[in-house]
């Protein structure tokens, strides 16, 4: 009985703390976990003095990292400055009554300077790195673009807000599933460019080198590069049983079959490189599962409360798995990677890919029968579409 009392007091305390710290407004608490909360309120900031591209960049970048825009009087942090020549600005913490950031930028485009400022604003306010920059440059995404909504297309690389897009394939054929090689300006993707067959390519955009790394009999699809860049997980059917999960070195050597599941698809990696998570069917139930990347037992990952999970993506901090569920509509769901709580449904959409901050996602939102990419802060559920460059943009991958 005493233990029961302790447990219930602990839970009561946790709940009341959660309510106290995060439920000041009308937004509901969903899950309290290690200080991170789904359904949390955005941080109110004011933005004064900026215009044009600089203003729109700052608004986009901050919105998709959990900030909202209010008047200077209502703001917790006041951001002010100008972009009459270059971007210059500062951030004032109204409660602490002090300037916590004061910066000016030179040498870049207005957009890149504004991204750099947004990155520093996020770090100054939250203490955690922003997502606007990756290794000093504006963070990139890769995605699939299809002018007619299906059929031939190209892989594109752009800034994460959709600007500065560049075509990354020379195909005019079916392409799919770009996956970044972490730490490099390089992708693995699926293309039907050779022989009109689905092969997996490695494409390095610094050297320009591109090579086929998997062209086994059957389909070679759904590549996913390991966090250390040394390996690639993929779906092959070379053994003629059914499409299953395989892993190879990044050059295609040392191929190994990992699974024999009935309905395997869409592999991704745990950030420590030890696990490959994928969608499958076990005992007649569609589920997520994981298998050791070096081979071993397949383990089911419970996704209680949602059905037909596909397209998992494991957050860079290891805590979360985002995926697509299908229960009538297709929804973006997020759950603790250790299965310790049920998935939370965030919004309509498909194919989530985590940003390095492990709280912002890019995903494909269906509009009619085509896709538009959208950037989402999972904890505030704030999302903004990015500009569409073709009839249908899908399968986004955030550079890491």
């Amino acid at each position, binding site marked *: 009985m005493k233990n*029961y009392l302790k447990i219930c007091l602990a839970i*009561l305390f946790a709940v009341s703390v*959660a309510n106290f710290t995060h439920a000041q407004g009308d937004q509901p608490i969903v899950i309290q976990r290690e200080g991170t909360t789904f359904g949390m309120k955005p941080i109110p900031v004011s933005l004064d003095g900026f215009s044009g591209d600089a203003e729109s960049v700052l608004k986009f970048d901050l919105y998709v990292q959990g900030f909202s825009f209010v008047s200077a009087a209502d703001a917790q942090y006041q951001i002010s400055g100008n972009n009459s020549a270059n971007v210059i600005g500062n951030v004032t913490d109204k409660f602490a009554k002090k300037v916590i950031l004061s910066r000016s930028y030179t040498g870049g485009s207005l957009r890149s300077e504004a991204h750099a400022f947004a990155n520093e604003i996020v770090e100054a306010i939250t203490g955690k790195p922003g997502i606007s920059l990756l290794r000093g440059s504006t963070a990139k995404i890769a995605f699939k673009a299809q002018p007619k909504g299906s059929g031939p297309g190209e892989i594109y690389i752009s800034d994460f807000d959709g600007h500065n897009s560049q075509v990354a394939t020379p195909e005019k054929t079916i392409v799919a599933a770009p996956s970044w090689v972490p730490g490099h300006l390089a992708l693995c993707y699926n293309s039907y460019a050779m022989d009109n067959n689905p092969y997996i390519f490695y494409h390095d955009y610094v050297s320009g080198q591109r090579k086929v790394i998997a062209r*086994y*009999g*059957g389909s070679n699809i759904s590549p996913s590069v390991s966090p250390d860049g040394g390996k690639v997980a993929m779906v092959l059917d070379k*053994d003629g049983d059914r499409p299953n999960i395989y892993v190879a070195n990044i050059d295609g050597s040392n191929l190994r*079959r990992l699974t024999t599941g009935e309905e395997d698809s869409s592999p991704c990696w745990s950030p420590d490189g030890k696990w490959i998570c994928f969608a499958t069917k076990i005992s007649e139930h569609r589920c997520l599962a994981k298998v050791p990347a070096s081979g071993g037992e*397949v383990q089911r990952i419970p996704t209680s409360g949602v059905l037909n999970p596909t397209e998992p993506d494991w957050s860079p901090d290891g805590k979360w798995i985002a995926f697509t569920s299908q229960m009538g509509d297709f929804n973006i769901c997020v759950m603790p990677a250790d299965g310790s709580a*049920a998935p939370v449904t965030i919004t309509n959409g498909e194919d989530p890919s985590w940003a390095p901050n492990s709280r912002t996602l890019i995903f494909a939102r269906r509009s009619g029968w085509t896709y538009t990419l959208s950037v989402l802060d999972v904890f505030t559920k704030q999302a903004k579409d990015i500009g569409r460059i073709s009839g249908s943009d899908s399968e986004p991958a955030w550079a890491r």
Partner: protein
Amino acid sequence: MKTNLIYTFAIACALAAAGCAHKPGQLTHLPSTAAPVVQDTQPNPFPLPTEGNNPQPTWEEINGMKADRAALAANTIHFAYDSAAIRKAESANIQAVAAALKSDPSTKLMIEGNCDERGTEEYNRALGERRAGAARNALIKLGISGDRVVTKSFGKDKPVGPGHDEASRAQNRRDEFVLLHPANGATPMGGS
């Protein structure tokens, strides 16, 4: 008794907090929320050693051959939504494809699996491969050697029905059979 009440209240609070994003009234999830299951581990239900009895031919063997899309165009088979099971109604088509392969041992076959527009992209790409594989397995059961039959999937990227209605979707959930002739063999009837 009192502690039980508090315990119940605490769980109810936790559930209320945890459940808000979903439909209200999902209190039936109590066991999994109150006592989190960290890992649902079970032995691998799909052991590896018995697999791989009918490996696919390599693309190198296939790519040099002459593709005849017309020969078996009438035998395209269709699938139910989100299913790779071959329907009984399609057995005549499978028989016809098997007969064509048996009548000319120099031929091979490429099966192209396709999906309708619903469903996530890489799931559908795997589903198309499973559809092609289902037809391949059916042909193997009819005595066709696995090394004569290669599969590939277009996922939902190669629809033939233009619409977004069930009629178009039903057309798109299909396997197409492409007869392959040796490159240096006689020119097949029906063109290339």
